């Protein structure tokens, strides 16, 4: 089903969930307009933005007056509303359930643990002007390692993508979270060749949209220079 006017999205590409939405829009060529919201400048706290989203978070989708938050709801809405290849969010109930299973698990696993490493290693020290809390960081790295092990042994067991033979919105959510610490110079997939191979498959499947989405975040300098980036991970959904 194709809609009339382009869908409007409010994104900051330094935010992991925003990148996932951006990649789906660009690689499926859904007509859209990106409104950049610079979290580091507090653009999410303006009365205008707050009126649109009380939670002051990104991404936000506006489709002919219909306002939607939460990246996984947005991705599923786009995959259903627009004419995109079915593999992104399969209609077959068991295949779809696999995607719903991952997107639920994602919040308190991949997202929580990858973002925590980034916050502890980059954002908090920059914002507070303090040294990295090594105990907390080791704890976070240990949790992240558990998550990476589970991604390999549970989701990627005997299949090329997280939810089956083809890429889905689940892979977009996951890859964008796992790219965040890489943007700060930490290669969290270094000891995980199976995840590295999955990452390559995802990159091939989405093509140049992947590099476009990550162009802003993949430079350590860009991230390190902004103290207000403390709020990024906690201000995106």
């Amino acid at each position, binding site marked *: *089903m194709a809609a009339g006017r382009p869908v409007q999205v409010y994104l900051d590409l330094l935010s992991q969930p925003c990148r996932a939405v951006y990649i789906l829009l660009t690689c499926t060529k859904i007509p859209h307009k990106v409104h950049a919201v610079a979290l580091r400048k507090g653009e999410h706290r303006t009365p205008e933005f707050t009126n649109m989203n009380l939670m002051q978070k990104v991404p936000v989708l506006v489709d002919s007056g219909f306002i939607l*938050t939460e990246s996984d709801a947005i991705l599923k809405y786009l995959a259903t509303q627009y004419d995109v290849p079915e593999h992104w969010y399969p209609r077959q109930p068991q295949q*779809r359930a696999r995607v719903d299973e991952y997107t*639920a698990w994602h919040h*308190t696993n991949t997202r929580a643990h990858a973002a925590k490493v980034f916050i502890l290693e980059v954002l908090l020290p920059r914002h507070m002007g303090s040294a990295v809390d090594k105990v907390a960081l080791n704890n976070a790295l240990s949790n992240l390692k558990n998550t990476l092990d589970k991604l390999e*042994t*549970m989701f990627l067991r005997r299949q090329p993508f997280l939810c089956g033979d083809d890429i889905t919105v689940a892979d977009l959510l996951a890859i964008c979270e796992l790219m965040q610490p890489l943007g700060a110079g930490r290669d969290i997939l270094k000891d995980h060749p199976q995840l590295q191979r999955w990452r390559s498959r995802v990159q091939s499947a989405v093509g140049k949209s992947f590099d476009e989405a990550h162009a802003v975040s993949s430079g350590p300098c860009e991230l390190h220079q902004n103290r207000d980036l403390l709020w990024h991970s906690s201000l995106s*959904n």
Partner: protein
Amino acid sequence: MKLRCLCVLPGEHFGEEFGKINLMRKVPALRDGDFYLAESIAIMIYLAEKFETPDFWYPTDIRQRARVNEYLSWQHQGIRTHSSKVFWLRVMIPMVMGVEVPKEKMDAALEDLNSSLKLIEEKFLDDRPFIAGDQVSLADIVAIVEIMQPVGSGLDVFQGRLKLSAWRDRVQAAIGKELFDEAHQAILGAQENVKLLDPTVLQASKSKILRYFM
């Protein structure tokens, strides 16, 4: 459809049989023939579709469904994390593990819970009778069970919250009081039931639990 109950505290979910059903070793888990599924949200959606439940539970209208999905997504970190934490800090950690919870930790957890409840009232309910609109949906079920968790710890989160209380009454009526009470019997009896628990059941995970919650 068969419901199998297992007890998490004595570690029944670590048994070999359960491991075949759910590698993540968590409940709930579903088995439908050779198809295994974890994660309550995914399970509820799968059941709604498979058994063709009345449309309002998980609407086929794309925008209404998106509204339900929006809540189901937000709630993981938005309310579940906080309501679970309050339960652990008020009941499991002091009463089962015998560990005192510092006041500042409790106050911080309560503040987070209060912020979440405020958001539920202001954004997710607003002036609507239910989260997705005029009718109950999966979003309301998922919301009510999380909000009842701290109630099980003796904290009446509905007191002073007229909008939330009215919504709770509507959800109860929509589900049916008998089923609502049956589903919440264990959690509402938690403070008494935990006294009967063997405190060593959580011993193996003690440091992990304390590190996570405190």
